[in-house]
Structures are given as structure tokens and as C-alpha cells.
């Protein structure tokens, strides 16, 4: 019985941590993975439909809400939605102004998008872990992991976007040659040590997006695992741990979104600076 329970628990956890994967299976061809094993076998050529769907949905929600606020905007006393949107925008604007020292009108909108989008995606975590998967299970969808930021593909994908912007900004501000020179001549300003510098700087450059993506992923994934573990408790005990953890996650959710946004701005600011 104990072994049986353990099996169920492991199955439950694995089930909850499995994305809905669509990809090219060596045997079944292009199909939805019906087990975790199949999803692994698909290798690189697979896509997590739930991650994509929920992240796009959250992005759309962000755009819809802010567009609505923008359309209703008046120059008089702002109503509820406009007021809230203005508050968020003010917050992001202050953050950008204090962190970003270059000149680029794209940074503040980028920061706003990152912050709200990640905040919305993270917030999906506060929905009890069984609700949505159960609902989709009824509709015949086997796997459904609704929090995109607990999928390393989503967080590293965003980090990759930031990384490309860093490369682009560096090349645009300093020129390709200038950027190369910066990589080759810091921290030791001599051509003799250029190879050493290059290795150091390229590692440093690559670490930025990886740490950016993994930080968000790690925090969210760990939180999710704890939520799932809490869900394995007897039903009358769930709330005792679940409620404090959820309340704590209000902080984590916004903090991680804030950290991702701030670090993106800091990296981009560094890319805009001449050394």
C-alpha cells in the first residue's frame, strides 16, 4: 500500500511537471506526446503547446488591457483602469530612468512588456495546481502545465531575446569593430592578452542571458514543485501549507518579474555604454 501510494505520488508529480508536447517522434511522426517518455524521445524538434498557448494568452491579455486603458485615457481624473495602468507605467518609467543611462526610446516599453508579461505568467501559479489540468483532462488533453515561466524554454527564450538586443545595441552603439575591440581588450588592455580577454568576455556575455533565464525558471519551477508536493498532503491539511506558500508567492511572483526586468535594463544599459 505504501509503495502504491509512493508510485501514485511520483506519477502525480511527473504528470504535473510534464508539458503538453507536440513534436516529431521517431516512431509516431508528428504527434502529441502521450507520455513523458515520448516527449523526451522527440528531442529538440518539439514544441510545448501549453507554454506557447498560455504565454501568448498572457501577452494578449496584457496588450488588450493596456490598449483598453489607452483608448479610454482622458486628460482629466483617470478612472480605475487608466489609473492602475498609469501607476504601473510610472513605476517602470522611474525604474528605467534610474537604471538606464543611454538614450533609447525602446527601453521603457520593453521593460513594461517584460514586467507585466512575466508578472501575468507567474501569477498563473497562484491558481491551484489541479484546476486547469483537471479541466483540460476532461477535454481529453492529457498534459497541461499552465505556468509558462516554469518551463525553461520560455524563460531562456525571453533571455535569448534580451541577449540578441544586447548584441544588437552593442554593435549599433560601438560598431561591430568597437564591440569586438571591447571584448578583446578588457579587462587587460593589451593585444598580447587578447585571446585570454576574449574567452573571459565571451563567457561573461553568455552568462548574462543564461543566468537571467535560469534564475526566473529556477525560482518558479521550485515554487511549482512545492505547490505540487503540498497538494499531495491529505486534503484537510493542504490549506495549512498552501496558503502561506501562496501568500509568499505573491512576493516571489512580482519580485522575479521585477528582477528579470531590472537586469534586462542593466544589461542593455551596459551595452549602450562606451568603455
Amino acid at each position, binding site marked *: 500500500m505504501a509503495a502504491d501510494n509512493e508510485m501514485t505520488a511520483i506519477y502525480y508529480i511527473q504528470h504535473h511537471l510534464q508539458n503538453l508536447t507536440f513534436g516529431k517522434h521517431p516512431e509516431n511522426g508528428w504527434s502529441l506526446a502521450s507520455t513523458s517518455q515520448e516527449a523526451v524521445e522527440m528531442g529538440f524538434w518539439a514544441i510545448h503547446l501549453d507554454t506557447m498557448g498560455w504565454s501568448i494568452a498572457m501577452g494578449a491579455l496584457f496588450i488588450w488591457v493596456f490598449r483598453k486603458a489607452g483608448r479610454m485615457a482622458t486628460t482629466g481624473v483617470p478612472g480605475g483602469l487608466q489609473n492602475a495602468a498609469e*501607476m504601473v507605467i510610472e513605476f517602470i518609467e522611474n525604474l528605467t530612468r534610474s537604471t538606464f543611462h543611454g538614450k533609447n526610446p525602446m527601453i521603457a516599453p520593453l521593460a513594461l512588456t517584460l514586467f507585466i508579461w512575466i508578472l501575468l505568467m507567474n501569477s498563473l501559479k497562484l491558481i491551484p495546481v489541479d484546476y486547469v489540468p*483537471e479541466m483540460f483532462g476532461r477535454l481529453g488533453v492529457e498534459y497541461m502545465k499552465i505556468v509558462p515561466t516554469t518551463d525553461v524554454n520560455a524563460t531562456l527564450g525571453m533571455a535569448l531575446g534580451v541577449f540578441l538586443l544586447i548584441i544588437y545595441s552593442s554593435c549599433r552603439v560601438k560598431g561591430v569593430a568597437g564591440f569586438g575591440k571591447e571584448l578583446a581588450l578588457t579587462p587587460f588592455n593589451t593585444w598580447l592578452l587578447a585571446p585570454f580577454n576574449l574567452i573571459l568576455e565571451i563567457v561573461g556575455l553568455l552568462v548574462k542571458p543564461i543566468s537571467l533565464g535560469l534564475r526566473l525558471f529556477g525560482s518558479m519551477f521550485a515554487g511549482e514543485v512545492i505547490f505540487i508536493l503540498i497538494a499531495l498532503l491529505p*486534503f*484537510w491539511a*493542504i490549506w495549512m501549507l498552501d496558503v502561506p506558500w501562496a501568500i509568499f508567492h505573491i512576493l516571489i511572483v512580482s519580485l522575479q518579474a521585477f528582477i528579470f526586468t531590472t537586469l534586462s535594463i542593466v544589461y542593455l544599459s551596459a551595452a549602450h555604454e562606451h568603455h
Partner: protein
Amino acid sequence: MNINMTLIGQTIAFAIFVWFCIKYVWPPLSQALHERQKRIADGLDAASRASRDLELAQEQAEQTLRESKEQASEILEQAHKRSTQMIEEAREQARSEGERLVASARAEIDQEVNRVKDELRAQVATLALVGAERVLESSIDEKAHREMLDKLAAEL
């Protein structure tokens, strides 16, 4: 995948969590939003009040200007009127003075004429007497005829 009590447990937890949010998370947020709204409203109010004040002040200034202009024109008009009046008075005075002068001159002339007439009268009597004396070549009783001749002169 089967529904079990876990779902109920999660629902209980979720309900408590939502209650917590409504009770402790939402109020400060909503208060911050309200404060911001109030601040903006106050700012806009102050601005509109200031602009209204400005309008009022402008209006007042305009009115004062208009009043003073009116006053100035009134004063000017009064002065004008007064000057015409003065001229009129002076003219009147001059005319009356002239008339008076003319009258007094005339009176003087009349007086002179009367005086000359009296003188003439006096002399006429003497002349007549002398003439008559010459004509009659005789002495006439002066006393007897003086009275008669004076009467004659008075009739002149």
C-alpha cells in the same frame, strides 16, 4: 487522472488565499490607487481654480480699466463743458461790460449835451441881451428883462 479530495483541499486553500488577498493585499493597493486618483483630482482642481482666478482677475482689471477710462472721459467732458461755460461767461461779461461802457458813455454824452445846452442857454440869454442892447442902442433895464429872458432861455 481522477478527481479526489485533493481538489477539495486545494479549493479550501484557494478560498482562504483569495480571502487573504481581499482582506490584506487588495486594500493597500486600492488605497494607493485612490490616493493617486485623489492627488490628480486635487491637482486638476487647483489648476482649474487658478485659471478661474486668473480669469476673474483679468475681468476685474478690464473692468477697472474701463471704469477709469469712463471716468477720464467724463472728466474730460466736464472740463470741456466748463471751458465752454467759462468762455460763454467771459463773452457774456464782456458783452455786458461793453454795454455798460456804451451806456455810461452815452450817459456822459447826454450829460455833456445837457451841460453844453445849459451853457448855451446861459450864453444865449447873455447874447440876446447883448444883441438886443446893440439893436436898441439903449440901455434896457436889465433887471426888468432878465426875468423874461431867462424864461425864454428855459424854453430853448
